């Protein structure tokens, strides 16, 4: 425990940590604070108003959106696919265009989701995969503005199940996850690099302490420190919501639950990547890998920001609405978060192996030798 506090103190008094705290708090507040001012207490009553978007289970909306897009892309022979989340243009040969037309006609006859998936599957194959017509991606078409009845149901869930704070907490978790997916990796690499800079690594490696204890203590101290700005922001936002809704039945723990359940697994992974890449490369190369992972996750998530969990390292829910979707897919999100927590443990295990090899003098980090002068 003494080692934990020593590491914690050393970590949280570093300039890198101070900078991390400032930018994390700033980033979350800048993006969430304006949304907090959007009132949620008033029930929707206007039948002609345009309400926020939801992910619908309505097959008709999904089919109409999918066929409209395919018709347009087929007419222009300009299709878009998303390998690793990035938009890529695809044009087809005349023969393939005929096959798409056949698939389009078949899709028009489909009266179930399964039938539509079957009809559009060949289109995805012709495009080389990763298109919106892939069975797993068809859900992207199921987005449309809420009707008045849906807006009322959404409002009821916000008031009764989310108890207002839960709604804001989802948005907070969405934004906080974006930033904690990348910054901890940099802070940790810099933290580990400080040992190399001071040339104390060999002295530390020679200490009579097991690698698991050494690594787990450092990891736990770092995670505890890295979570501080997230919790600080949660507290600030909770205070703001309490001021905006005096007397309302609020869930006072919602922001902290979101921080622990939603944000923490992402933070665990990015922190573990920091330790692993330091052990693997002994420099900042790991940053390039993490930023690549971050960008790909962001791009994939951007296709459906109002509710997109799946296997994303940053599960997206950038909306104060679409509440039914959240509760309907809660188990999916829970599996996602559990999966990433386990992945962080695996990364930590790999780091441990590499650190043991380093202590035994069998590994010194993967890097090319500088060219001879």
């Amino acid at each position: 425990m003494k080692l934990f506090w020593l590491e914690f103190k050393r970590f949280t008094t570093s300039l890198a940590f101070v900078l991390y705290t400032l930018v994390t708090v700033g980033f979350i507040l800048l993006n969430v604070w304006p949304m907090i001012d959007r009132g949620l207490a008033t029930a929707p009553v206007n039948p002609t108003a345009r309400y926020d978007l939801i992910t619908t289970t309505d097959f008709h909306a999904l089919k109409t959106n999918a066929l409209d897009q395919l018709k347009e892309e087929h007419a222009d022979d300009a299709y878009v696919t998303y390998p690793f989340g990035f938009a890529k243009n695809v044009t087809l040969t005349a023969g393939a265009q005929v096959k798409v037309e056949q698939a389009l006609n078949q899709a028009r006859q489909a009266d179930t989701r399964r039938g539509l998936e079957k009809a559009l599957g060949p289109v995805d194959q012709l495009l080389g995969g990763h298109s919106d017509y892939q069975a797993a991606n068809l859900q992207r078409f199921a987005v449309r503005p809420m009707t008045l009845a849906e807006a009322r149901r959404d409002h009821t869930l916000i008031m009764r199940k989310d108890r207002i704070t839960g709604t804001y907490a989802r948005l907070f978790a969405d934004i906080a996850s974006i930033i904690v997916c990348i910054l901890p990796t940099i802070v940790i690499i810099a933290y580990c690099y400080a040992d190399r800079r001071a040339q104390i690594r060999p002295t530390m490696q020679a200490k009579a302490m097991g690698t698991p204890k050494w690594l787990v203590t450092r990891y736990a101290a770092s995670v505890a420190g890295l979570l501080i700005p997230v919790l600080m922001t949660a507290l600030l936002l909770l205070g703001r919501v309490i001021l905006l809704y005096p007397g309302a039945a609020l869930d006072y723990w919602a922001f902290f639950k979101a921080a622990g359940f939603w944000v923490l697994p992402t933070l665990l992974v990015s922190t573990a990547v920091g330790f692993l890449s330091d052990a693997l490369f002994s420099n900042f190369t790991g940053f390039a890998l993490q930023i690549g992972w971050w960008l790909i996750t962001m791009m994939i998530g951007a296709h459906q920001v109002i509710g997109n969990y799946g296997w994303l390292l940053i599960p997206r829910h950038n909306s104060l609405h679409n509440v039914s979707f959240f509760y309907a897919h809660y188990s999916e999100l829970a599996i996602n978060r559990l999966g990433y927590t386990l992945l962080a443990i695996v990364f930590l295990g790999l780091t441990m192996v590499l650190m043991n090899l380093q202590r035994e003098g069998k590994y010194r980090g993967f890097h090319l030798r500088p060219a001879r002068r």
Partner: protein
Amino acid sequence: MASTFGRLAVKEIRANELFPSLLAIAFCGIMPILFTMHPTTITQAALPGELFMPLAAIFCFGGIFLPEQVAGVTDVLNSKRTQLVSIYMIRFGWYTVLLSMINLLLIVGYQLPNFAGVLFFDFVTKVLFVGSLTVFSYAASRSLAAAYLIPTVYFALCVGYPHLGPLNLFILMRQQSWTDNWWQLGVAVLLLVGGFGLVTKRAVRS
């Protein structure tokens, strides 16, 4: 004198920039897999240069301060005729040229002669803007973490925060006027002058 400086530049690049440069080239090598190489609009064509290259730039420019991180090396170097700031400038120049060449290759591959000039100006401005932000962040804080952290946060802000005006990195992607790049270029020059100025001042003081 010029040849001495030239020899120094070549040796410096071979010793310290070769491996990160190869990594950066490999990193950029996945662009044709991720992005379309036959864009039909300038918005599509801008994606790799505005979305991907700034990240490569953060990785490259953050690394220009890495070799002297070992305690005492900075003081030794600053006692020599060639000051550390000159070495930093060589590295900055090298990575600017390297990333600009990658941008040029990308634009040549597009075969969009009408947009080529605007795209190249836009892409190189991004490289310089991110590079200058990295240099200034390090010079002002003396922290390697800041050199990576601040440009990364700025990039993340550009992705989601809509009020950065002409300083948003995604000018063409967001269909802003390409002339906004002049603002970014101006800020880049200021940050570079300030950043290298701080490094020089520090060397004199220490």
